[in-house]
């Protein structure tokens, strides 16, 4: 009886620690959701830069990107999530999981650029937003180039 109880306890503990770890399918799904949401908001800012500038629209969009950039998305790159499917098959390259220093540098640049964009968006200075937007896009590209399958 006592050993059964211990076994149940051990099983429950294991289950709890397994829950703390995001499931691969969920991780990939949330990654894709985050990138899609950032895509929506990059598009909103670009529309403002190409057409009539709408300060509130740009602030909303920049804040969303900033929030996602600072959400700790690295936690979604769990072991084993180099392959698999969320909303669709992941395009991540396995190198993302092995070249930690390089990925970390890009992620840091990306966070800084997203913070900077949100900061200048608040001022409503279209020229400064355009520069910050281009810089942010450059950090997206550096990761797409090296760590995403074409």
């Amino acid at each position, binding site marked *: 009886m006592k050993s059964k109880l211990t076994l149940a306890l051990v099983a429950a503990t294991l289950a709890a620690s397994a829950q703390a770890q995001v499931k691969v399918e969920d991780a990939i799904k949330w990654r894709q959701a985050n*990138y899609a949401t950032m895509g929506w908001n990059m598009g909103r800012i*670009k529309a403002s830069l190409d057409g009539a500038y709408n300060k509130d629209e740009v602030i909303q969009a920049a804040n969303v990107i900033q929030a996602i950039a600072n959400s700790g998305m690295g936690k979604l790159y769990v072991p084993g999530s180099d392959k698999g499917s969320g909303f669709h098959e992941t395009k991540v390259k396995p190198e993302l999981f092995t070249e930690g220093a390089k990925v970390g540098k890009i992620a840091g640049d990306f966070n800084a650029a997203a913070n900077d964009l949100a900061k200048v968006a608040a001022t409503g200075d279209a020229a400064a937003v355009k520069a910050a*937007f*281009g*810089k942010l*896009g*450059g950090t997206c590209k550096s990761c*797409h180039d090296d760590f995403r399958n*074409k």
Partner: protein
Amino acid sequence: MNSQRIYLWDLPTRLFHWLLALSIVAAVITGQVGGNWIEWHAKLGLLIVGLLVFRVVWGFIGSTYARFGEFFPTPAKISTYLKGAWRRPGHNPLGALSVFGLLAVCALQVTSGLFANDDIAFNGPLLDLVGKAVSDRLTGFHHLLVNLLILLVALHLAAIVFYAHVRKDNLVKPMVVGWKETEGPAESAKGGGFVALLVALILAAAAVYGASGAWMPAPPPPAPAATTPSW
């Protein structure tokens, strides 16, 4: 030695050549750099569409040595050239292969770019004609093909160096000034007058307009927000 000077490359052909060379270099660089430079990358793409269409039209109605029929590389011509018996001015049969190869790869590259996207802030002007899934595939193709383009350009430059040092034949100067010293009988280029130039320019401009997507219907305006009484 009956050396003489002939008019080889007409001015439109030379302008085309150097504009295309500059545009390709600038497009490759802006494509690699990204960020806001992607806007210039897109503009350069449209310029290259215009240049390529101009060159294709000029290949039919331009002056003698610019015409495709004049230098189309048949196996017989290539064989003659490889035996060292080729004496005619203009593109030699191997050079002609390079010309057609470069034009074809440039055309494929620029066409795929019109439908491409970068999942950041750039959508090709004609993306909506094919949808996102096809656009993604064409984007992958665009990224691969640029390597072949760079390889062909490198080969082109290597051939120029080879001709300059081994064959003692300066290919660059005629492409700049138009005139070339030839040995043996050869005639200067004829044809490709003002009307032909105008036709080629109009067709090139039409192609740029088509590629720009400016003719595509604008997305429908958003429905007006439902109004509610002010109280």
